[in-house]
Every structure is written in C-alpha cells, then in structure tokens.
C-alpha cells in the first residue's frame, strides 16, 4: 500500500503543553483512517497538523515532518494555502457560508480563478453529486444554504470541500452534531468518497470507527498508542489501554 501522507517524529506544543509526542504514522491512499481517543488526547490537533490549520493558533510550535507528495509541508518555502487546497477539511458543526447553495460550492473554485460559468456549473454539479446532495438541492441552488437541514448542510460542506478535488479529506467529528439518520447518510457517503479521495476522520463514536474505517489510530495524552487495521484494534488490540478504551472502560 502506498502512503499518501506520512508523519515523522511529529511533535506539537501549545505553549507549555506538549500536545503531540513523536507521532509516526503512515496514511494510505483510498482508505478511511479513524482517529479515536478520549477528549484532549490530541486526535483533533493531529488532524489539524495535516493541513496546517494549527498555523492560525498562537503559541503553537511544531517539530518533525509531515510528508505529503514527497515534500515536508512544514518546510519554510511551502505555502500553507497550496497545501490546504489539496487537503480539504470538514468540521464538527455544519458551517455553510450565509450565501446560496451554489455560491457555497463555487466559493473556493472562484478564488482559484475558475471564472467560466459552464465550468463552475460543472464543478458545482459534480461536487454536489459526489456529496449525495444533488437530487435534494438541484431545484434550489440559488436558495440560501442556511435553509437546508443540519444533515444537508454538512453534506454541503463536504461538497464545498471536495469542489477543489483535494487528495485528502479531513473530517473532524463531522457527524457528532447530526441525528442518526443523517449520520448514516454521511457514513455511506464516506465509503463512496474513499474511492476517489483519502479520508482521515476524528470520531468520538467507536461504533462509527468500527463500521467504516479501514485503519484506526488510538491516541492517549498526545501519544499514538496503537495504529493498526480497524479489525485488529477492535478485536485484539496489542495494548492494554487500547483494549480498555475500545471496550468502554474509560474515555
């Protein structure tokens, strides 16, 4: 299996707090990698190092390497914008912009100089189809995105994130604010998405990790305790702490 992104001795400090400790991890192409662990274990922080979203927080120091496309994305001559263009992100709370459904999906393509209407229309339709939202919104592309339901809004955010055809999609607890039915829809969607993209997700929901991920990484207090095939992690984990966590003893 080919690794699409790989971290080497990745360390992260928030001020005095050592939030990630020597993380080595290889994430494979066209797989869903789930990051699990109790609150404050560093899984979200780790996810955000992958597209340099931690850059905007003050007092963050990052050491080690994140290798993507053969380059360390923390090299000084790398433009974080160009990284984020290739590594998209979906957040916990659905956060469509207060504009129309169409404008939401066309937001980033417009910035990246897609001006021709036909091209934009194509991108919007493709992204919405890939996000399994097209049939529900095709008649109201000009309506405000805020009029959609929570689940639809989150799928719109996915469509918006894949409009640039990134290589990796990071999902930070993307279903935790949704009802079960919307959650299942998005899980189905993720199984589809991994055929085209690579998905890295943070989840609080262990069943979700077990249901849809190929690989699972268990974080605890900034350490990557265990990283293996999802089945292995849930059936016979190598570490005692992992076993305790996946069987619900703490967390």
């Amino acid at each position, binding site marked *: 299996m080919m690794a699409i992104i790989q971290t080497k001795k990745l360390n992260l400090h928030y001020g005095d707090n050592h939030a990630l400790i020597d993380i080595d991890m290889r994430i494979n192409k066209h797989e869903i990698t789930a990051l699990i662990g109790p609150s404050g274990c560093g899984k979200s922080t780790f996810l955000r190092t992958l597209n340099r979203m931690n850059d905007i927080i003050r007092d963050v120091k990052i050491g080690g390497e994140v290798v993507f496309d053969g380059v360390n994305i923390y090299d000084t001559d790398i433009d974080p*914008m160009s990284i*984020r263009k290739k590594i998209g*992100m979906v957040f916990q709370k659905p956060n469509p*912009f207060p504009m129309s459904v169409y404008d939401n999906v066309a937001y980033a393509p417009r910035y990246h100089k897609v001006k021709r209407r036909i091209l934009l229309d194509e991108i919007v339709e493709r992204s919405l189809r890939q996000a399994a939202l097209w049939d529900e919104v095709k008649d109201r592309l000009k309506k405000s995105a805020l009029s959609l339901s929570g689940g639809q809004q989150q799928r719109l955010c996915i469509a918006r994130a894949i409009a640039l055809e990134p290589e990796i999609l990071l999902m930070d607890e993307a279903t935790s604010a949704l009802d079960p039915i919307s959650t299942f829809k998005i899980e189905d969607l993720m199984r589809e998405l991994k055929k085209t993209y690579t998905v890295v997700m943070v989840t609080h929901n262990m069943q979700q990790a077990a249901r849809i991920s190929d690989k699972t990484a268990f974080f605890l207090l900034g350490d990557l305790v265990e990283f293996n095939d999802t089945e292995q992690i849930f059936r016979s984990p190598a570490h005692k702490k992992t076993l305790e966590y996946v069987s619900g003893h703490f967390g």
Partner: protein
Amino acid sequence: MNPYKAYNLYKKRAHKDTIIIRTLCFFATGVALAILFGIIAFIFAKGIPAINWKFLSTATSYEEQNFGILPNILNTVYITVLSLLIVLPIGIGSAIYLSEYGKQGRLLSVIRYTIEILSGIPSIVYGLFGALCFVTYLRMDYSLLAGACTLAVITLPIIIRTTEESLKAVDVTYREAALSMGVNRLYIIRTILLPCAMPGIIAAVILSVGRMVGESAALLFTSGTAYEMPKNLLTMYDKSGATLTVQLYQSFTEKPHWVPEDAPFAIAAVLMIVVLFLNISTYFVGKKLKRK
C-alpha cells in the same frame, strides 16, 4: 398547620413585587416616550407653519432682507457625504486591521483604549483641533473640506469600534472553513466578513450621519458661517458655508428684525427631516451593498 402556607405567602409577595416593578418600568417608558415625542411635536408645531417654499428655495440675503436656507441644506448634505467619503475608508480599513491582521496584544489594546477616549471628547475640542490643524496648518481655510475632515475625525471612533465589533461577531467557523479551502485572508474579508458585518457597518454609518448633521460647535471653527448660495456643487469644497445647525445657531443669536420669530424652529424641523432622509438612504445603500 398547612406546610405550604409559607410558600404561598412568599409567592403572593413576589407577585406584588412584580406588579410594582412592572408599573415603575411602565412609567419610566412612558416618561421617556413623552419627552421624545414632546420635543418632536413641539418643534414641528412651532417650525412647520414657518416653513414655506421661499424659505426652502432661497438663500439668506441682507439686501433683500430675505431669510432662506437652501444653501444650508446643500452644505449639510455636501459636508456629510464628503465626510463619509473620508471617514469610511480610514475607519473600515483600520477596523479590518485591528480585528483581522493586527497581532492581539498590548499595542492593540492601547489603540482600542485610545479610540474609546477619543469618542468621549467634547466636539468643541475637535473644533479647536480642526481649526488649528486643517484650517490653519493645512491651509484649508474656513471651508467645507476642513469641516468634513473635522467631522471625519469626530466620527472615526464610532466607525472603527462598531465595524470591529461586527467583524468580531462573524462566526469563527466561517473563517476556519474558508481557510481550510486554501483561500487567502483578503478573499475571506471581501466575500464573507464584510458582507456579514454590513448590518453593523450600516448602523455605524447611521449613527455617524446623525452626529455629522447634528454637529455645530466643531463646524463654527472650521467650515464657517457663510450663507451664500454655492455656485458649483463640484468645487464648493473650498468655500466656507454654514450647515443647518450652524445657521440655526446664527439665527438664534444674531437675529435681524426681518428674520421670522420661529425661524430656528423651522430649521430644526428641516434638520430632522434631513436626518430622516439621510438615514433612509444609508439604509438602502447598505442593503444594495449587502445583496452584492
């Protein structure tokens, strides 16, 4: 004994308190409204009868012994628009810097504190500053431009503070989402932050317009008291000219016998109508901007 008795008593008293507080608040509101509408009614009752077409469409002239306020209306609108053109780019620009680019720290809080102090300075002090800085030092003379600059300085704190607050109130997750798509800050400001903050900015502009139209002390020192009819709307910025408020002051303090008794009230009534008109147009301009 009924164990609930104490509770019932307590409830009854709470209810009584509520009634008293509610009545007091009702009267407070009543007094506030009475004062407000009283002023408006008083000014309109005394002012409206004194308004006629000649009053609105001519300039004051000592030779013809005529009292008219057309130049003052024009000056007021002109100085307000000119002043907005000066203050909006500076004010909105610095608000964007303060909330989006500036590194949060001691320097920024000092700047914020200074802005707060600026908004508490009496306007006559600004007038003095305008007279020294714009009129004398920058050689603008008594002119509408000097007045507009002074008004811009006066309203700058309102614009900066309100714009900054409304930029800050924009949902943080919008910024995150946009950043995660690899767009730059300028694009986020242009496409999301400014449109979202627009209602707040419009509110700031309306407040500022009220302040500009209502200002008199600072303008006495800077844009002067001339009451001639402006000859050319485009080039009148370097001419001295009294706004409505300045003219009101003039007509109240040095009144030749041919100025009608109720002239100040007539000006006040016109002033209120002008403010209303400016506010409504600000509202519509803002609405248009937001749709874009």
